[in-house]
């Protein structure tokens, strides 16, 4: 995968004013050599459409104003329903660490605290892109129950 260009969708809610984190992570992933589609979504379906049409390797979802559990709960089945299973899903923003396990259980591969250097996220992506699938996380979620 390393020789290919890694394509990432950085998705951030359109109605949320907090864009500093998502814009920074977009730039830092670009600096790490990735192709970043920056996208402000309205609904979960908008994200799914963008993921499908851009055929990205990674979805990086930035959330600053809560709703992270609700959105993830809806997002993963919606992606799978459209046949997307070979996606690496990372999340970040203002998300309490106590929810990280719950998000992983729902299907996110990794969640990051705010303010971390972009390399931390970039390195994780480079190590895991193409190796993880949403189907696999679904199994994990089922096993956890």
């Amino acid at each position: 995968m390393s020789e290919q260009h890694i394509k990432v969708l950085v998705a951030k809610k359109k109605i949320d004013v907090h864009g500093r984190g998502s814009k920074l992570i977009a730039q830092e992933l670009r600096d790490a050599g990735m192709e970043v589609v920056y996208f402000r979504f309205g609904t979960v379906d908008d994200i799914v459409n963008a993921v499908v049409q851009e055929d990205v390797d990674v979805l990086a979802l930035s959330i600053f104003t809560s709703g992270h559990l609700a959105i993830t709960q809806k997002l993963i089945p919606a992606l799978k329903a459209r046949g997307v299973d070979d996606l690496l899903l990372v999340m970040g923003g203002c998300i309490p660490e106590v929810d990280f396990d719950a998000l992983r259980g729902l299907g996110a591969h990794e969640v990051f605290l705010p303010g971390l250097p972009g390399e931390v996220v970039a390195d994780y992506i480079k190590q895991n892109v193409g190796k993880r699938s949403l189907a696999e996380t679904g199994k994990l979620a089922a096993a956890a129950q």
Partner: protein
Amino acid sequence: MKPFVATTEHPDRAISRLISLLERGQQEGVQRIKKLYPHCGRAHVIGITGPPGSGKSCLVSALIGAFRARGKSVGVLAVDPSSPFTGGAILGDRDRMGAFAADPEVFIRSFATRGSSGGLAAVVNDAVDVLDAFGKEVILVETVGVGQIELDIAQLAHTVLLVLVPGYGDSLQAMKAGIMEIGDVLVMNKADQPGADRAVNDLCFQHPLKFGATEYKCSRYNAQHWGVPVVKTCALKNTGLDDLVFLASEHYAFLQRQDLLSEKNRQRRKKQFLDILSHSIRNSFLTVLKTDPDLQRWTSKIETLDIDPYTAAEKVIQFIQFAREAAVNTKHS
């Protein structure tokens, strides 16, 4: 001629995966696109170019709206520059087109230029065919505004919209020489800014011409004797879009009337074939080179100038010629 229908996948997913396969140069993609060509040839392919800052992606967004209002399905291929240092890129065009995020009749795909190695034009060529085969009626190809890719896109689009803004003079300098000649319609975007009328007048070397029932200011006649109209738009305010869509469609009708459309398509295919061929020859040569010690010994002579590169190339051509004659003789014998 009917659009191609993917049987097992959601069409967007099928389009998208196929473009990815072609982007990565994978054989599976080539095998799949081969089946699509019978379904190609119905879409109106419109290139949108112009200097950075002219508001191309906002204009594309407004154009999507205008074509959707006319019931047309739309495909968009949007190109943004890659960083020459890291190879990374931020592709921000899709975001400008957020109003159509949920519209199933709109397919948007972003591309990075990936340096000057030239692979992009081939991928965009393929992507246009894929969207065309899947039944998108209008395909908008938005480019970055600088470099060779503009001219490549001009050759593949039926109609090229060159987007300018008041005070465009300096920014035009940054673009490739000859860029002014590629526009079939000149668009003065951000026309609510001061100086728009003067900027339009500066572009007009011809008397106004009638298109349908309406008269438009006109820049000049191009080589096909099409009078290049100049139209004012303000993409943010959604003004001038009716005129623009009308003129683009007029240009398409003009190409059909003058039998220029099929000529344009023939030219495109010829060029595409030659590009694919030279790419394939180069690739297969390089593949063989990796494993063939005789060939490696021979090419090392070029590197040390024991054979000069021109003579070496002539020898290869002679060899192919020889092989071709041998094949013909075998067939006849």
